[in-house]
């Protein structure tokens, strides 16, 4: 789980860098490379061939492995989604056309899962990013032992989903859980977190928030430290207070970073799986007795591995993929709009 966002960040930067650096590098090579003998000699041909083919050879492992383990399963899933396939009868698939998709669209469980994914996504992502922004702002001040604070912020991110969720499940347990124990001091009756409609979603979101706020805060912090100090100085000269500096200098300068975290968090929220599965305990893939926190990922897992209906599970997988594309398109539109408004 840890490397995902880093990987994306890495990809983003290298993609940005690539177009600029490549031609330069090529030019440099041409300058340096002195073709040893006249054209037509096999060495120069080899040399040219090397120049052309090597880059492809270097990047090919990624594409070969992606093809074998990413693309083929992806297409095979699409094939499955058009068939009636049971886990116990993989060889006996029958053509179903779009039945699996039709079945999904008319299934209350699917719409419920879609709704849950959305609401849990909102109540986990929005507070998480806002808190991360605030924390990053605080960490950006000169603090004693700032490294310690930053490391502490990152510890939840380094814990495993399973361990974190297990602890949270105990904290939220109905009878004798710490959350209910604390609530009783303010006169709130014990809440059955797992089985109440909003309680379950809230609890799952809180796990997500706990795990990811620190990570986002560090990303914001890194971006904040790249903001030139003279901007703040001139703002201060103009009489801006700290809050105004934050609003009118920090936030606008962070805009690309904020967009990045929003995109990544949205994708993460769409794929939310581990936390609700483990939070639910036994039969966790149901996402609660009334599916009150069953996300799309859980619904897919339940159909595929719980019930054994692989055709329908594949249809859910592809529907999720389409939803991600739509979400990405919306993100792109908003990004463009924001860029124009700048």
């Amino acid at each position, binding site marked *: *789980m840890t*490397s*995902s*966002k880093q*990987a*994306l960040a890495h*990809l983003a930067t290298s993609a940005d860098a690539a177009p600029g650096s490549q031609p330069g590098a090529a030019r440099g090579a041409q300058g340096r490379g002195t073709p040893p003998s006249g054209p037509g000699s096999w060495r120069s041909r080899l040399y040219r061939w090397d120049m052309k083919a090597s880059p492809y050879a270097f990047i090919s*492992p*990624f594409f070969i*492995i*992606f093809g074998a*383990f*990413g693309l083929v399963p992806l297409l095979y899933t699409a094939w499955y989604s058009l068939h*009636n396939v*049971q*886990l*116990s*009868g*993989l*060889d006996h698939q029958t053509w179903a056309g779009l039945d699996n998709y039709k*079945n999904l669209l008319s*299934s*209350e*469980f699917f719409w419920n899962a879609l709704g849950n994914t959305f609401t849990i996504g909102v109540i986990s992502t929005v507070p998480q990013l806002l808190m991360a922004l605030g924390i990053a702002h605080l960490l950006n001040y000169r603090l004693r032992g700032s490294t310690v604070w930053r490391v502490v912020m990152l510890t939840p991110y380094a814990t495993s*989903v399973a361990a974190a969720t*297990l602890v949270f*499940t*105990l904290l939220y*347990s*109905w*009878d*004798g859980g710490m959350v209910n124990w604390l609530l009783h001091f303010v006169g709130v009756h014990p809440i*059955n977190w*797992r*089985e*109440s409609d909003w309680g379950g979603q809230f609890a799952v979101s809180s796990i*997500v928030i706990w795990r*990811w706020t620190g990570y986002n805060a560090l990303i914001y912090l890194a971006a904040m430290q790249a903001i030139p100090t003279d901007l703040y100085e001139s703002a201060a000269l103009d009489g801006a207070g700290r809050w105004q500096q934050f609003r009118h200098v920090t936030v606008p300068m962070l805009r690309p970073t904020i967009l990045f975290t929003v995109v*990544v*968090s949205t*994708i*993460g*929220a769409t*794929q*939310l*799986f*581990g*936390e609700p599965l483990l939070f639910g*305990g*036994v*039969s966790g893939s*149901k996402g609660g*007795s*009334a599916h009150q926190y069953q996300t799309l990922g859980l619904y897919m897992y339940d159909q595929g*591995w*719980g*019930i*054994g*209906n692989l055709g*329908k599970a594949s249809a859910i997988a592809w529907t999720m993929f389409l939803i991600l594309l739509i979400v990405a398109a919306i993100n792109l539109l908003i990004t463009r709009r924001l860029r124009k408004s700048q």
Partner: protein
Amino acid sequence: MRTSTRRSRRLGAIAVVAALATGLLAGCSSDPDNGSSDTNNGGSGKGKTTLTIGTFGVFGYKQAGLYDEYTKLHPEISIKENVTTRTDVYWPKTLTRLQAGAGTDDIQAIEIGNIAEAVQTQADKFVDLGKEVDKSQWLEWKTSQATTKDGKTIGLGTDIGPMAICYRKDLFAKAGLETDRTKLAAQWKGDWAKYVDLGKQYMKKAPSGTKFVDSASSVYNAALGGESERYYDKDGNVIWDKSSGVKKSWNAAMTVATSNMSAKLKQFDPTWDQGFAKGSFATVACPAWMMGYIQEKSGASGKGKWDVAAAPTAANWGGSFIGVPTAGKHQKEAIALAKWLTAPEQQAKVFAKQASFPSTPAAYADLKPAADTTAYFSDAPITQIFGDSAKTIPVQYFGVKDQPINTAISDVGILQVEQKGKSPDQGWNAAKAEIKDVLGQ
């Protein structure tokens, strides 16, 4: 969550795995070669055949020292057990491997909830063990569950799960109830509704902080375990909503769910374990294999407080089989091992270790539970209580989707009534919608 660039992350992992695998494969591929050449050469080398056995949970073979014993008897064999903790992870994995015809272990365990699916859809992937053994060794219903319509037996019975009621004597005394196990058993004999009625009595004078039973679905499962009509009929048709067994068990569970006698715990949750430790419920329907669990979770303070009485009906919960996949390379050796592991003497040894109850009646005569278990449960005649139950358990028919249907009823229907305050009708309808989805209707 956050598998944002799941693909790239996965690819990274795969690249590493691929790199490692090339190394490993080289190592692996040489093994079988060595093995076969050794056996061909006969005396020249001490070639060992390694048998693998795929199990889930704790089968107890290793714990009871059976593997060591077998390899001592057969020095040419070595045994490796591949354990997957959870059945819901183990079974899908095994299904795909069986159908791929690769990656299966030489012996593969099958849980009772999956046996119907295995018999009806995977029979051609297993060796017919019926020809290899004397089938009359086993309880008849046990073997018939693993036998196809045309008489092929794909698995040998390991343990079964005869039920009893485990109860807290001390709490019963405080609530002013009978504490003698035979008298109690007589009070609720024949009907789970009577057991639930006793629960109402218990709640009138219940010691504070305690409930009568751990959950409504545990009552449901226990009651259904004693019914001959479950979710499927003999011919494999789904009859769950007309089944008299389901209705009776559902009604008993509803009485529990709508009263205050349930501790409202979900079995095998961490909170359920805490419930044992805190003594927050006075009874639990316990199959033989649960004895060790109760002992462990209740801890030393529960010693001598727990007692065991015969359940209202002879019921079964759980139990397993072991089969030999046809994809295995050492079928002959695997069959011999499977026969040996499921023989009455070996089943008795597993019982002595962890109270998994034998499916072979020949073992019942000289069953000895572990001494500390007997002491823990107030010197109750455990062997006799479970043995009596085992002999009268009705023949039950399981179906392909038995497990998902059961989940829909207990973890959706009953749980909604018990924990979300829905009415029994609403709970039933929720389960119904769920089962429709399960069956793809």
